[in-house]
């Protein structure tokens, strides 16, 4: 989850998010260096005591400040396109989960074998136990096996919602009547939080998403328990 005053991206929990994180660092470094350089030039020019009133043109510097930006743009575009195509790779999922958006909660359906479905409501602030996160915890988490390709089909039962988990690098709009596919792999076990990302009414800010990645055995035990309870 994001912490107070956090400016950067959350730690990656999937290979795609790792790529996005590194690309973000790369692009940010480039624009920081350019901005620092431009600021330096401006300060130098503004504080200079002498001025040359007779410079009208200069082929050399014109060439440099045309070619260098072109090269920098190529250095940004190449990793960007690489990631763009990586996002579109064909997946072979091991598990399909449906995430349905409602006003104002998510419901998850695991129907590859049996029909398992359950709702996931936010834990109200007054019911939090010490150590839990305000506005982020949910009563039932979406449990997934770690290191397995997962397909999530996102839809909605009433209005537009959006299913997002930043640390997995996932955001997908939930549109009524439409089934949107997103795929990811959780590379490490853990609990990953997200929030509804499309305005959907009074409690839009109070329908969080919690994904829990566990070893396969634990996932199988959990799903058996959930089926019994249903």
């Amino acid at each position, binding site marked *: 989850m994001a912490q107070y005053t956090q400016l950067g991206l959350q730690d990656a929990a999937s290979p795609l998010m790792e790529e996005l994180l590194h690309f973000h660092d790369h692009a940010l470094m480039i624009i920081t260096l350019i901005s620092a350089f431009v600021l330096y030039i401006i300060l130098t020019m503004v504080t200079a005591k002498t001025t040359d009133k007779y410079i009208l043109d200069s082929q050399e510097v014109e060439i440099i400040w045309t070619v260098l930006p072109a090269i920098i743009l190529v250095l940004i575009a190449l990793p960007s396109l690489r990631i763009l195509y990586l996002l579109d790779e064909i997946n072979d999922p091991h598990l399909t989960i449906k995430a349905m958006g409602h006003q104002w909660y998510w419901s998850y359906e695991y*129907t590859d074998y049996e029909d398992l479905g359950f709702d996931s409501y936010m834990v109200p602030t007054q019911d939090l136990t010490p150590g839990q996160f305000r506005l982020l915890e949910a009563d039932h988490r979406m449990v997934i096996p770690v290191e397995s390709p997962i397909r999530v089909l996102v839809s909605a039962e009433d209005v537009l919602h959006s299913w997002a988990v930043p640390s997995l690098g996932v955001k997908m709009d939930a549109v009524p009547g439409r089934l949107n596919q997103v795929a990811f792999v959780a590379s490490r076990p853990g609990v990953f939080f997200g929030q509804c990302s499309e305005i959907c009414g009074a409690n839009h800010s109070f329908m969080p998403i919690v994904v829990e990645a566990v070893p396969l055995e634990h996932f199988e035990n959990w799903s058996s328990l959930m089926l019994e309870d249903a």
Partner: protein
Amino acid sequence: MAEDIKEKLEKYRTAPFDARFPNQNQTRNCWSNYLDYHRCQKALDAKGVDTTPCEWYRRVYKSLCPMSWVQKWDDQREDGTFPGKI
């Protein structure tokens, strides 16, 4: 043929990649498999043949389609108001 389908069903994990629906919008994938299952059932029942091949379509639509959609479509088929051609 019959053994192939049985093997495929035994090894079934989830709906595999379908090249007819390669993109983000999988609505048609769910709809298509739901229709194919019921058409298959109807056709093989009419011939009096074993309907095991139809199981594949059932597994796929169960994996992909939201339970509320399936419920709604099942109710519509019972009422005779189902919009698809079976």
